[in-house]
């Protein structure tokens, strides 16, 4: 009898383990299909990152909007984090008032394009007053004006295969967003801060604004935008320059 019990136990345990492994594999496949696995899912912090990202993506599937504020609440001080690149070609473009600056858009798009700053400023503009927090803990409220990224995406015809949008700046802080955040109503390419042309140290001539993530996701000094179906072969494969420095790719926290 005890032999029977132990054999039964063994079979049950074996089946449970097999079902568990298969289940986990299937769950990972399904999760990846629905875009619930962040590019930096590996390593010892991967489980926490994946749980956070998947949970927040499921909760915010409706495209929830970050809080917007009144003009009276705009902060008097807008701290600078990561000053302008001191090297060419950035300094040369800055000296020329960005007249020669072009934004290149390529990758999985129907119409790869380049836009001048004037062309971008002629697109339908949007202004919003939002809160931005740095991962260090400081924060400010500012008024930003720019063009919604979704408008530009429709203009160039982003392929249905695209899953991420990669932002290439003039400095090393390249980063990417998943498509839900790229299409989000409050994600835009900003060229104006508190009613003035974007100052150089704040990302001139054009920067990303992502209202639902920490400040470092709002890439400054943009020069190129690429649409890809996977982050595996971009940079070190972890979705952004940030994980190499210890910061997570997803910063909705």
């Amino acid at each position, binding site marked *: 009898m005890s032999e029977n019990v132990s054999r039964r136990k063994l079979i049950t345990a074996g089946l449970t383990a097999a079902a568990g492994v298969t289940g986990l594999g299937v769950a990972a496949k399904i999760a990846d299909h629905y875009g619930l696995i962040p590019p930096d899912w590996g390593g*010892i*912090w991967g*489980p*926490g*990152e994946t*749980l*956070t990202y998947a949970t*927040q993506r499921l*909760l*915010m599937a*409706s495209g*929830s*909007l*970050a*809080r917007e*504020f009144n003009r009276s*609440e705009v*902060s*008097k*001080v807008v*701290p600078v984090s990561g000053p302008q690149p001191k090297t060419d070609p950035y300094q040369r473009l800055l000296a020329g008032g960005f007249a020669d600056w072009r934004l290149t858009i390529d990758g999985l798009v129907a119409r790869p394009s380049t836009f001048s700053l004037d062309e971008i400023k002629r697109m339908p503009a949007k202004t919003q007053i939002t*809160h931005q*927090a*740095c*991962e*260090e*803990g*400081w*924060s*400010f*409220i500012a008024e930003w004006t720019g063009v919604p990224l979704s408008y530009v995406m429709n203009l160039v015809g982003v392929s249905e295969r695209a899953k991420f949008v990669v932002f290439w700046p003039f400095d090393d802080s390249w980063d990417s967003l998943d498509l839900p955040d790229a299409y989000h109503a409050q994600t835009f390419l900003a060229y104006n801060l508190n009613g003035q042309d974007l100052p150089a140290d704040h990302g001139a001539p054009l920067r990303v604004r992502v*209202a*639902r*993530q*920490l400040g470092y996701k709002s890439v400054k000094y943009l020069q190129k935008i690429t649409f890809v179906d996977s982050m595996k072969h971009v940079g070190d494969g972890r979705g952004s320059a*940030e994980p190499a*420095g*210890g*910061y*997570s790719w997803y910063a*909705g*926290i």
Partner: protein
Amino acid sequence: MATTTYLEAGTVSNTTRAETPHFSLLVRVTHWLNTISFIALVISGFGILLAHPRFYWGETGGLGTPSILDLPLPFMLGGPSGWGRYMHFQAAWLCVLTGLLYAISGLMSQHFRKNLLPAKGQLSWSALKSELWNHLRFKKPAAEEACSYNVLQRLSYLVVVFFLFPLMIWTGMAMSPAVTSMFPFFVTSSGGYETARTIHFFAANLLVLFVLVHVAMVCLAGFVQRTRTMITGRVSGGKVRP
């Protein structure tokens, strides 16, 4: 789950009272998981704090704006704190999931009602006073106290479980731009992003204070024996928990 374990172990070892588990398996497992997550949260929280050891009130704050508390530490001590964030949120998941398991089972097994809510008579002024006096004199607890929580323990555990931990989670949520886009009440009820950060810091200090007193009390009562009890669940020679 907790009840089952308790009853099973209890019925098996009916003969020797000393064998009766003092803490249910679930309380023991969640206690140690929570120990791991709490240590990780404190270390990583401190790592995050080192980047900007300054506190503000309201929605915003930064260099060049008035602060309410400046810790005597340089900025960015220890370099970028990204590792701190990775660790903090992984540990937070462990803490929250463990906490949920503990809270749900504690409600279902009536652990909170039976062992944490102060018993009748414990809440009178004279009882509270003598208990506090005993604590302040570091009087070694009587043997029967090994089997039941005294009123100060009960009150502090209740505050930690039902006030400080929920407050940490609440103010933590208030600092997430993604979460507050869906649930803005976390941040509005906290009085703004920076206020939430400040409350998060002070509540964390209270939790660390609780742990220090808790460990001091365990040492006073006999560190090895009490720690063994929290691992094995058994009190050698002690009375059965009521």
